C-alpha cells in the first residue's frame, strides 16, 4: 500500500511538472477556448436568446452550466493524449517494466485530469460570477457541481485512455476526438434547452449523458436546492452506470495493450 502511494504520487508529480513547463500551450488549449464560449458566445447571444425559452434571467447564466460541462468534456476526452504519446515513444514501456502496480500509471492520470478539471471549473464559475451569475445553492452547490463534473470526467477520461491504448496512430486518435466532441455538445442542453430543439435533436440529446449532467448543474446555478435535488439524484445514478461502462471498456483496452 505504501509502495502504491509512492508510485502514484511520483507519477502524478510528473504530470504536474509537465504542465508547469507547458504553461502556455495548456493555458491556450484548455482554459481559453472554454472561457471564449462563456464570454463571447454568452454575450453574443445575450439579446438573441429568448429568456422565456431559456428559463433563465439572461443567456450567460443559462450558458454557464453548459460551459462547465463542456470543460469537463474536453478535458476528459483529451485526458488520454499524454498516455498515447507515452505509448508511442516507449516511455510507457519503460514505466511498465518497473515493479509498479499495473494500475498506477492510469490512476495518476485520473487524479491529474480530475484536479485540473476542477480548477478550470472553478475558474469558469469565477468568471461567470464576474458577469453576475451567482450560484443559487452557494458553496455546497459548487461542491456538488464539482462532484458531478468529476463523475462525468472519470468516464470520459476512461474512454479517452481506452482509445489511446487501442488506436494505431495518434492521427486516428485526434480524428475520433474531433468527431466526437462537437456532436456531443450540440446534441446536449449545453447551448439551448431540449424544449427549444427540433424534435429529432432533442430526442437524441436525451441519451447524451452530458445532457443529464448539465440539467443537474443548471438548477444548482440558477434555481436552488428544491429544483436541483431530483436532477442531482438522477445524474448520480446515470453517471454511475456511465462510469461503470466506460471503466469496463477502458480496463479491457488496457489489458489488451499491456498484455
Amino acid at each position, binding site marked *: 500500500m505504501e*509502495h502504491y502511494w*509512492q*508510485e502514484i*504520487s*511520483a*507519477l502524478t*508529480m*510528473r504530470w504536474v*511538472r*509537465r504542465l508547469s*513547463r*507547458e504553461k502556455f500551450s495548456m493555458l491556450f488549449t484548455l482554459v481559453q477556448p472554454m472561457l471564449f464560449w462563456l464570454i463571447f458566445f454568452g454575450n453574443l447571444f445575450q439579446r438573441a436568446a429568448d429568456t422565456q425559452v431559456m428559463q433563465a434571467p439572461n443567456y450567460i447564466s443559462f450558458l454557464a452550466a453548459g460551459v462547465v460541462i463542456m470543460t469537463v468534456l474536453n478535458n476528459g476526452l483529451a485526458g488520454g493524449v499524454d498516455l498515447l504519446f507515452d505509448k508511442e*515513444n*516507449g*516511455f510507457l*514501456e*519503460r*514505466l*511498465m*517494466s*518497473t*515493479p*509498479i502496480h499495473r494500475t*498506477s500509471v492510469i490512476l495518476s492520470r485520473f487524479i491529474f485530469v480530475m484536479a485540473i478539471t476542477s480548477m478550470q471549473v472553478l475558474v469558469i464559475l469565477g468568471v461567470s460570477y464576474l458577469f453576475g451569475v451567482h450560484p443559487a445553492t452557494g458553496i455546497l452547490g459548487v461542491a456538488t457541481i464539482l462532484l458531478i463534473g468529476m463523475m462525468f470526467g472519470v468516464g470520459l477520461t476512461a474512454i479517452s485512455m481506452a482509445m489511446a491504448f487501442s488506436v494505431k496512430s495518434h492521427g486516428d486518435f485526434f480524428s475520433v476526438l474531433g468527431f466526437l466532441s462537437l456532436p456531443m455538445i450540440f446534441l446536449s442542453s449545453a447551448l439551448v434547452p431540449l424544449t427549444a430543439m427540433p424534435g429529432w435533436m432533442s430526442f437524441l440529446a436525451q441519451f447524451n449523458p452530458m445532457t443529464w449532467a448539465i440539467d443537474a448543474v443548471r438548477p444548482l446555478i440558477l434555481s436552488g436546492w428544491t429544483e436541483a435535488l431530483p436532477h442531482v439524484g438522477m445524474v448520480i445514478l446515470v453517471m454511475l452506470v456511465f462510469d461503470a461502462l466506460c471503466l469496463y471498456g477502458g480496463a479491457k483496452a488496457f489489458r489488451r495493450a*499491456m*498484455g
Partner: protein
Amino acid sequence: MDRTIAINVNRLCKTYDSHKAVDDLSFSIYAGEIFGLLGPNGAGKSTTLRTLITLLHPTSGTATVMGHDTVREADTVRTLIGYVPQERAIDRFLTGREHLQLLGALYHLTTDEATKRINELLKLVDLEDHADRPAKTYSGGMKRKLDIACGLLPNPKILFLDEPTLGLDVQSRLRIWEYVRMLKARGMTVVMTTNYLDEADQLCDRLAIIDGGKIKTLGSPVELKIALGGDIVSLTLKELDRIPSLETELKGRPAIKSVRTTTKGLDIRVESPEKALPAILEATNRLGCSIEFIQYNRPRLDDVFIAHTGRAITESIPETESAS
C-alpha cells in the same frame, strides 16, 4: 564448464493474429555475459526482448529470468532487471534528474537511497552538468546516456538494451560500447538487440542471429565465423561487366568453396589461400580481367549473417550506415 544460467527461453512462440513474430525459440543466456540478439527489423528480436522484460505474454512456451517465470512471477522479474528502450523513450519536459527521481520512486527507493544512486549514475554517464536541464535540450547521445542511467537505476542483475546505438554518431556509439563493457566487468549480464553487425561482433560474448522469428545460429562471434569455414578473397574489378563470366569461371574449381557477386566484384570463399590465389589470378588473366584491388579476409560477421539468412542484413533496414 557449467555456468550459471541467467535467462532461459523454452519453446517460446508469440503470434499476432496469424503472423508468427517469434516461432519456437529456445536458448539460454549465461550470467555475466553480453548476449546479442542480431537480426533485421521485424525479425522477432524486439518481441523476444519484450517477453523477457515481462511486457509481452508468450502465446506458448516459457521464459525465466534468474529462475523466475516472466508471466507468473512478473513482479519479481521486474525487480531484477533494468531496461533501456530504443531512443526517445524520454519525457522531453522533465530534466535528467527528474527522470531518475521518478524511476527511483517506481522502484520504491527511499529518497536518500535514490539521491545517492542518482548522483553516482549521473557521474557515471557524465551528465552531471546537464542533470537539471529539460531533456528536450539534450543531444541524441546525451539522451542515450540518460536512457542508460535510467536502466541502471534499479541496480539490476540483468540489463536489457534495445538497439542501444541506433541512430547515434560514431563517438557516442563508442561511448556506449565502453559503458556496456564496463558493466560486464562489474559482473552484470547484458542482453541487447542490434541490427549492426560490427556492434554484435565487437561487443557480444555470444549472439543469436534471428530471422523470421527463428534462431538461425547461435554462438560466439569467433565460433560462428570458424563454423562458416574458409577465408575470403575479395576482388574488385575494373570492368564490372566481367563479373558474371569470372564468376562462372571460378565456380567449382578446386580450393574454391563458393563465389558470390558483390557490387564491385566477387567474394570468393577459399579453403586455403595458398592454393586458391594462383588459381584465381590465372583465371582473371585468362579472361583478361583487370583487378583493381584484391583483399584477403578472415570471415566477417556479415558473411555469417548472409550464410544463415541468405541475404545481407542491410538489405532489409533503411539505415545508411553499413557494417563494412
